[in-house]
């Protein structure tokens, strides 16, 4: 690896993107259509696709036009089935942050207790082992039945799926704090509370942050499926709705936005993780 060319990797990325779009273009190219392709035409076709008049795979131009349309007016609201993609994304982000935040409030203190007490660890381990592999969506009917509110049920599903990685990682990080550091606190007669906050928490913070990063990734994966099920609002519902409209261009746009938001969430958590990482 030569590090002297920092532009090489981005250049290759751009090349791959061009290749992808090129293949896509060729695959969706229809010689029967007009020979001249200009932006006006692309916009027209895009509109046609969104009304459901055209059901074939869209060309890159059509999707590009669609994207532009979404970006130029992301927050409009014209009733239940016609909201801007920005609004739908905000609904989803809100649910993810709420469910994830609640899960963090439960998982981190509980993980602390589990990590510090081998007895509680042993007592709770069977529950964790059985509940952890359950698909969060399997909770959905139960949530709908008991909570009787689709929005809160979606948040509950996010809560459940974010819980386990944070719980397990916190317990693991807390249990693995170096004996030496705990002994330092003990010989200095540092109170248990101060030890928890000033020794164990910073020592386990990188592991806890890793758990949080995994959790938010899973939460963002699950929210799309959850919203497809509960309907109403959110990017998952948007995708489902556009599938019913047979607007592939909209679906592709949504996929792109979902990916970008997911990346942003992960980058954010990675930043936070870097802030609490220490070198030994």
């Amino acid at each position, binding site marked *: 690896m030569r590090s002297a060319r920092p532009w090489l990797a981005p250049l290759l990325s751009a090349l791959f993107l061009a290749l992808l779009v090129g293949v896509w273009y060729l695959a969706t190219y229809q010689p029967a259509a007009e020979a001249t392709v200009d932006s006006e035409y692309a916009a027209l076709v895009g509109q046609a696709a969104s009304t459901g008049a055209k059901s074939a795979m869209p060309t890159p131009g059509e999707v590009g036009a669609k994207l532009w349309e979404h970006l130029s007016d992301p927050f409009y609201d014209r009733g239940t089935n016609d909201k801007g993609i920005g609004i739908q994304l905000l609904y989803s982000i809100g649910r993810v942050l709420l469910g994830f935040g609640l899960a963090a409030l439960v998982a981190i203190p509980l993980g602390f207790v589990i990590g510090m007490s081998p007895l509680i660890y042993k007592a709770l381990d069977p529950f964790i082992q059985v509940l952890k592999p359950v698909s969060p969506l399997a909770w959905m009917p139960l949530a709908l039945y008991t909570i009787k509110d689709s929005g809160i049920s979606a948040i509950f599903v996010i809560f459940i799926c974010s819980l386990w990685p944070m719980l397990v990682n916190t317990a693991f990080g807390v249990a693995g704090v170096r004996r030496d*550091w705990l*002994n*330092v606190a*003990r010989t*200095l007669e540092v109170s248990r509370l101060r030890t928890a906050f000033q020794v164990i928490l*910073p020592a386990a913070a990188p592991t806890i942050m890793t758990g949080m990063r995994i959790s938010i990734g899973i939460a963002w994966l699950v929210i799309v499926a959850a919203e497809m099920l509960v309907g109403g609002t959110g990017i998952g519902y948007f995708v489902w709705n556009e599938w019913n409209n047979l607007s592939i261009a909209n679906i592709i746009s949504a996929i792109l936005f979902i990916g970008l938001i997911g990346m942003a969430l992960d980058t954010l958590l990675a930043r936070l993780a870097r802030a609490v990482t220490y*070198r030994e």
Partner: protein
Amino acid sequence: MTQPFLKVEALAKRYPGPAGKPANTVFENIHFGIAKGEFACIVGHSGCGKTTILNVLAGLDEASEGVVIMDGREVRGPSLDRGVVFQGHALLPWLSTLKNVEFGVRSRWPQWTPKQIEAHSIRYLEMVGLGHALHKKPAELSGGMKQRVGIARAFAIQPKMLLLDEPFGALDALTRGTIQDELLAIVQATHQTVFMITHDVDEAILLADKVLLMSNGPHARIAEIVDITMPRDRSRATIHHDPQYYRIRNHLVDFLVNRSRDYAAGAPAAAAHDPRNPPLVRPGLEGGAEVLPLPAGAAPAAPQLKPVSSASA
């Protein structure tokens, strides 16, 4: 004789043996005392239980039998009265040098203002020559600097007693020498009571008032107590000019190389040895290798010392 400041009585450590087998005795019948202001080093082969003894003194570990009494009170659990310098320095890596020292100082004097805590901590860091590295993280320090922070942290809480577990074991000879000098100066100025583990015979002679020689485990015991009879104002540069130095050194090395395994159960030296009153020897003095009777009881004969010349070392 008055009660020593620290008194260790009949200390033993046993680990449960494999199913059906008898327990694994690391050491037993450990008796010794340390006077106030005294610097005691303990020397012995790896695995004989030195760290275990130190951890029991610190209150971090529990002995299977026996008691430790410090300043008239039984040691039960760790206390700010006993500062510990850990072998692996054990600095908190996410805190700066200064914050590491402040961490202990705040615990020692909770009523102090942050300004007082900082000033006090800085004073101790300057004492070990780290006034310029207050805001560095441990990862940015060399091994010697880290160990100095550990020493400053232990000294800064002004404990009644300092416990050091091979504090310089991981350092190169040059750095070790410098820090030994610093420790020597600080201890001489503060009259700190110290219990220190070392593998380095020269280090023990330089720093200690007395050296506890531990026989090999299992069933390790204090085989002998060596009085370092050289004047207290020692320095690394001149200590080897003292004729006592080589006599003591040879005695210690001879113990480690030839005699430390003679105390196993059934060995002749063990039969003649009373672990309650290990012989006190003064190899530094001419003819001092023979046993000095201890007030508490008759001590058995110490092994004969071969005459040595300074050239042999």
